[in-house]
């Protein structure tokens, strides 16, 4: 499990064995059933999590409607990240969709590792940058693309999630009505998706 994490952080910056050992010493393994809420609005996020098995979503309520903003699976990070970074209460729910295993580190422990290793701090800087860029891209696509374009873009980028995530959550993530999502699924047949 730690090997997965090591590969992941190595994509951001080269860490020595000593650097990674500092990080690994602070990691806790957490297992959850499906449909468990890891955090709710008003609570403060204590953990940054790396998914080694399973699937997690982040969402909030706009009136009575759920808005899904993140879907994270194996080899991805998940956290109520604004709350994790700011120390302020979360606006979001984070909930498992499948039985899930997380490698987690608390904010205090991560700060401590940053102080000990500038290279781990670099990984932290680059991951935080990545959060900003993913959010920016999501927002720009939201403004620029129409419903059909968002659907096609998603299918091309993430064919696997179509199989794993309940349709109502996918529709919410793409900001469309479930009926629209069902209708757009005929596009999948015309565009064979690699290997699926």
């Amino acid at each position: 499990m730690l090997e997965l994490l090591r590969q992941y952080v190595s994509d951001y910056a080269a860490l020595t064995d000593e650097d990674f050992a500092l990080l690994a010493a602070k990691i806790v393994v957490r297992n959850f059933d499906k449909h468990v809420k890891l955090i709710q609005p008003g609570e403060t996020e204590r953990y940054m999590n790396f998914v080694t098995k399973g699937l997690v979503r982040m969402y909030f309520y706009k009136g009575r409607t759920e808005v899904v903003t993140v879907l994270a699976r194996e080899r991805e990070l998940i956290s109520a990240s604004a709350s994790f970074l700011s120390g302020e209460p979360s606006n979001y729910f984070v909930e498992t969709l499948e039985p899930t295993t997380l490698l987690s580190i608390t904010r205090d422990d991560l700060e401590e590792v940053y102080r000990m290793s500038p290279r781990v701090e670099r990984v932290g800087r680059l991951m935080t940058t990545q959060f900003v860029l993913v959010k920016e891209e999501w927002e720009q696509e939201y403004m620029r693309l129409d419903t059909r374009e968002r659907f096609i873009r998603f299918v091309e980028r993430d064919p696997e999630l179509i199989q794993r995530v309940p349709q109502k959550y996918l529709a919410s993530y793409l900001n469309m009505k479930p009926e629209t999502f069902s209708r757009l699924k005929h596009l999948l047949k015309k565009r064979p998706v690699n290997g699926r």
Partner: protein
Amino acid sequence: MASYKAALDGLHRYLSHHVPLTKAEFSQLLPYIEIREFEKKVKVIDKGEIERYLNVIAWGLVRKYLPVRNREITVGLASEGHIVHSELSFHYRTPSGTVIETIEPTVFFSISYDNLQALYDHFPKAERLGRLLISDLYIRKDNRYFDQLLKSTRERFLQYVRTHPQMMQRVPQKYIASYLNIKPETFSRLKHLMRPGRR
């Protein structure tokens, strides 16, 4: 009148808010920084260009917008002391989808992509400074996203007026309306809320 000295002191204070820097440390950063000056209504970066710089506004005012079909959606309004750049283009080195245009004559303290990487390699405190600045950017982005989605038109208007009173004087109304995602007619109507004695 704005002066470079005052603007640099402002930059020093702004950075030190995240990571305390001595005068000597701050002056080590200066060789990495370029000063760029622009007239008003100039495109600092256009759609399709690659963003070379991360900018902090020394003085002046810019807006950032996303051209969508025949509309311009204002996604940022920034004045003195704020960071502005086309971030996806800057970090991924891809053509920009957004345009940054000056509203007033504007001066930037700019750091190029290459200089920023060199700074990270040579200046030990830069790593932490960069991380905390980016973290701050993320938190503000998330808050703005929430305000747009969950607050009413009236609440968004009042909050902006309260927190940015000087912008109401400096920014053409249509840009503020677009930034707050409020129709221009509605925006005009809401302005009565600004009269003295009203809340």
